[in-house]
């Protein structure tokens, strides 16, 4: 009647929707509609530190996790054992001087577009890593890659590189389809422009292909139909979502996700019976750094103050805060690596000694700034929580700490520039070898960040030189232990925690094995 | 121009009392008003602003704010087509709904505010017609166009599609009158219908009112404070002061031989000829005179929502 005119658009709209539904046959948007009862989609919650899916530029845990599923490497590790390298797409023949590595492709490996993998692809992939100067290019520093024949590639180095086989297992060195890449702007020098392509497609022979990638929210993988490798993936579709620790817990409890990768020791408590937790020590070490440059701080560069700090910290309290799986880091080298320090050599709490050292240092109660990344969660451990705990502990000795949290993006600059008075950071290994930890010595990367130039501590430097020279495992072990004792004694670093890595998975998911390099081999997961 | 009122009463108001509920208790606004509007005549209701004139008109339609209570009797005479007289005080929402706009219509003071600025004139002329008389849109529009022509709005067909602001003030008031007449009411309540208009325009509107009464047998209750207007068109006049009737009677008698002091003083206050006067005496006059105590015209101090008695 009066308003009848106005009702028309609504009716038209409803009709339009109904028609469109009819036309489209009202299909389902579910990814596995019509499939059998078996669970086919796997949801993994992970706190992202993803920067790219391009193996030649990727070197963060999330990238390793993703690229492990997309690409195959020449050599690899089996399960969680990173101490022993096994053949991947190739077998290895290593010269006795550890300078020549001959890799022979085994069987046939097919890229997702159907082409077969050849030595050209291997050479291209490795040379690209070197040439584009991305994050992982240092892995192949000094390595020359040459093709011997269609099945064989030879890697040569000037100096003995015993670590190269385990380096080759890194997904950053995954083999890419050189034809596809070249067609999409790929090259083996700095002009390479294939990253964009690799962030939307994958060009590998791995068990999965990239369906979509959003660096901020989620990565979706689908099963590679052309995959002819050993393990047949159980899940046809894998969604890796960027979810922070606390929400991961809810999600895995609520059934929204099947796997949570970043739960703290605290959070894995009380997950309930439907969730299985795999706890392993991680190879990460959280440490406190005191700047040794008097220009940055008069007080933190004072050796007595450093001693006072080391003796003030209640390490056991920190461990209990961090929860299950976490232990005190005895030295900078993580416990599972060669040359790790024994627990008995770890730093110890000694309030009396702390007070004495503090008095000697001439500390007058001034504020000392502790900088830390406010948005970093490592194995579920919040840096702000640790920082606040440290602040409270140091306060007991009479050290007044001012907390200066900042997003990691802003803070990194100050950290790398050696401008932080005190810093709370962590070190994750680039490869599973103690030599990766020589960065903690004067004049080296982390030493410089702590205002500790070459020659600042000759004792430590001498020990470091000795450790770098190498030798038998026993020799290396004792050299690295000596170095760490010296570091604990006089260095500007205070190793605090070696967090546990907790993987919480629905009990329906089988085959959950933690790997220190790529966290989880998605293709190896099973379902029941 | 002589008029022969039919003698029938179109609207019979007896002992009307309206009280405003205030924090200090009920405050009388209209205090025992008696008034009869004869069929086919104009009954003028005069008085100062705040004397309760507008409130009385609203009371006829049952449109007083909820904070006001009404007692007494307002009887709407039987319709021309027959039927029983209707008591409006205390009657049901259904009865009032059938009376408003249909049997009794109202024209407000300012046509620039009483017509909705965002609705086309045609819509405002037809929506109640369609509601009351159940006409189709086309029928209602035809009727509206005829009405506009009747009130001398030129080019009625086009006018229906226009908006109020596209008309002059005088035409707007003619449109407002057309809106009121659309359902063919018996009684028209005209609340200061010319006060907002220029004097030349006012003359036209007054002529129209007279015409409608004479030609259509309309009964009008004309509320105004302007004695000139009253003298021009009213057949009967009632003078109100502070909510009560002071004097009532045929126009000529009231203007030429007022009985009540107040009526006399009102007439005397009309501007006469030029004069010189001592300011002190004038001031004294103002001190003694005061303005009448302010009675809220419609809404007392904004704390009471306009509320229909019947809306739920």
């Amino acid at each position, binding site marked *: 009647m009066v308003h009848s005119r106005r009702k028309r658009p609504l009716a038209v709209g409803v009709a339009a929707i109904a028609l469109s539904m009819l036309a489209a046959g009202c299909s389902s948007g579910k990814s596995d509609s019509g499939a059998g009862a078996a669970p086919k989609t796997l949801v993994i919650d992970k706190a992202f530190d993803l920067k790219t899916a391009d193996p030649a530029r990727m070197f963060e845990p999330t990238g390793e996790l993703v690229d492990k599923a997309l690409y195959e490497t020449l050599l690899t590790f089996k399960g969680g054992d990173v101490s022993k390298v096994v053949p991947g797409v190739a077998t290895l023949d290593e010269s006795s001087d550890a300078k020549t590595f001959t890799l022979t492709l085994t069987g046939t490996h097919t890229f997702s577009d159907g082409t077969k993998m050849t030595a050209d692809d291997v050479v291209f992939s490795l040379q690209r890593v070197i040439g584009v100067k991305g994050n992982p290019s240092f892995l192949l520093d000094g390595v020359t890659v040459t093709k011997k024949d269609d099945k064989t590639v030879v890697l040569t180095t000037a100096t003995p590189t015993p670590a190269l086989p385990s380096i080759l297992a890194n997904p950053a060195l995954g083999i890419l389809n050189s034809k596809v890449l070249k067609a999409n702007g790929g090259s083996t020098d700095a002009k390479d422009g294939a990253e964009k392509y690799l962030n939307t497609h994958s060009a590998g022979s791995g068990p999965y292909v990239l369906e979509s990638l959003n660096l901020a929210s989620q990565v979706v993988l689908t099963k590679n139909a052309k995959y002819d490798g050993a393990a047949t993936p159980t899940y046809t579709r894998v969604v890796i979502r960027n979810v922070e620790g606390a929400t991961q817990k809810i999600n895995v409890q609520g059934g929204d996700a099947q796997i949570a990768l970043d739960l703290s020791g605290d959070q894995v408590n009380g997950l309930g019976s439907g969730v299985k937790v795999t706890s392993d020590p991680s190879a990460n070490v959280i440490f406190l750094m005191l700047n040794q440059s008097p220009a940055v701080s008069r007080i933190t560069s004072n050796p007595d103050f450093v001693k006072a700090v080391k003796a003030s910290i209640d390490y056991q309290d920190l461990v209990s805060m961090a929860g299950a799986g976490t232990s005190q880091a005895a030295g900078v080298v993580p416990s599972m690596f060669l040359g790790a320090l024994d627990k008995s050599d770890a730093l110890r709490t000694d309030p009396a000694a702390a007070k004495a050292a503090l008095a000697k240092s001439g500390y007058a109660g001034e504020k000392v700034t502790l900088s830390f990344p406010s948005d970093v969660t490592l194995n579920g451990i919040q840096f702000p929580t640790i920082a606040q705990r440290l602040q409270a502990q140091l306060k007991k000795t009479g050290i007044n700490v001012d907390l200066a949290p900042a997003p990691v993006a802003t803070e990194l600059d100050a950290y790398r520039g050696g401008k932080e008075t005190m810093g709370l950071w962590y070190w994750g290994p680039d490869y599973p070898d103690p030599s990766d930890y020589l960065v903690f010595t004067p004049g080296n990367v982390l030493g410089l960040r702590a205002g500790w130039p070459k020659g600042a501590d000759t004792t430590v430097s001498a020990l470091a030189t000795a450790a770098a020279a190498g030798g038998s495992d026993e020799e290396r072990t004792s050299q690295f232990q000596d170095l760490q004792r010296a570091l604990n004694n006089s260095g500007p670093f205070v190793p605090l925690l070696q967090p546990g890595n907790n993987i919480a998975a629905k009990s329906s998911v089988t085959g959950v094995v933690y790997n220190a390099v790529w966290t989880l081999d998605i293709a190896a997961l099973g379902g029941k | 121009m002589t008029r022969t009122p039919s003698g029938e009463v179109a609207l019979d108001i007896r002992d009307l009392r309206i009280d405003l509920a205030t924090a200090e208790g009920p405050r009388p606004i209209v205090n025992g008003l008696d008034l009869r509007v004869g069929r086919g005549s104009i009954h003028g209701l005069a008085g100062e602003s705040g004397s309760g004139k507008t409130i009385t008109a609203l009371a006829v339609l049952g449109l007083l704010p909820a904070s006001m209570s009404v007692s007494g009797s307002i009887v709407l005479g039987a319709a021309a087509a027959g039927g029983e007289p209707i008591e409006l005080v205390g009657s049901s929402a259904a009865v009032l709904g059938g009376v408003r706009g249909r049997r009794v219509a109202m024209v407000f003071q300012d046509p620039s505010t009483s017509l909705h600025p965002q609705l086309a004139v045609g819509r405002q002329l037809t929506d109640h017609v369609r509601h009351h008389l159940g006409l189709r849109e086309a029928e209602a529009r035809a009727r509206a166009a005829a009405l506009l022509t009747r009130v001398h709005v030129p080019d009625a067909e086009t006018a229906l599609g226009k908006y109020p602001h596209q008309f002059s003030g005088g035409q707007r008031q003619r449109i407002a009158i057309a809106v009121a007449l659309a359902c063919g009411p018996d009684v028209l309540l005209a609340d200061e219908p010319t006060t907002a208009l220029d004097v030349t325009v006012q003359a036209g509107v*007054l002529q129209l009112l007279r015409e409608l009464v004479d030609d259509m047998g309309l009964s009008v209750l004309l509320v105004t404070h302007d004695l000139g207007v009253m*003298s021009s068109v009213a057949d009967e006049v009632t003078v109100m002061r502070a909510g009560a009737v002071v004097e009532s009677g045929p126009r000529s008698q009231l203007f030429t031989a007022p009985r009540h002091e107040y009526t006399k003083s009102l007439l005397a206050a009309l501007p006469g000829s030029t004069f010189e006067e001592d300011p002190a005496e004038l001031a004294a006059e*103002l001190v003694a005179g005061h303005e009448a105590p302010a009675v809220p015209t419609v809404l007392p101090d904004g704390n009471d929502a306009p509320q229909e008695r019947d809306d739920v």
Partner: protein
Amino acid sequence: MSEHTISGRRLSGSAVPRPAGVLTVDDVVVDYRGRPPLRAVDGASLAIGAGEVVALVGESGCGKSSLARAIVGIERRTSGTVRLAGEEVPVLGLRRRAAAMTGIQMVFQDPNSSLNPRRPVGDQIQDGVRAAVARGEEPSEPHEWLMRVGLDPQAVRRYPHEFSGGQKQRIAIARALAARPRMLVADEPISALDASTQTSVAALMRSLVVDAAAGMLFISHDLSVVRRIADRTLVMYRGRIVESGHTETIWRDPLHPYTRALLAAIPVPDGAGRLPLAPQEADRDAWTEVVPAALGRMAPGEGA
């Protein structure tokens, strides 16, 4: 249009009256910017002498208020001059008005907006007194002024909201008069008031102004009030003064068709039941014409 304007100017210019004008308005034009621009006042000239009350009448929108505001300097004048005792009245800006110029004051239509709601009325009248003193006039007391406009002298400490509209208007008048102006411009000062007080307030204004030997320009659309208080009357239509001169002369024998229509449309409260004459639409066209004889009309017995 321009031709009309020129002739209008010349003709009204000839109507300068006898007493040496306290206020001389010469050929004032007021335009409002907009699309298209609107000419509100189209070349108005007038002069008002001491102790003289001049009324300005016309329908709403004819430019009465614009002219009044242009005279005191609230509205910018496109052209033309306004002089108070021979001195140019400047347009109000951010700068304070010179003491001499406080000799022209204004009373507005809406009494509710004429007073600062947060100051006692006595203080506001005192402002007027201060302006008078600054100009070298005798000091006076606010309560005297309250008394003069018929209000309780004790009320000086009260605030505006405690007064009725008519009372507020009288306070505004008191403030304006306290400045002892030589010229008072009143823009529809009584139209917002109750009918019963309109006449008295108008009469009061007249007598106070005449008493102080000041001039007054009194704007109104109520012709019957104007007839009662104005010595001379100016009739305005569409921005132009179409008829001017002695009030009674115009009232008795209007010459301009607009003035005639205006007067004929006034309903007479005589109880006779006569309908006022309503002009036809077509008549309006005649109202814009210039009738030279209608300007500068003299009182009977007065004259050249």
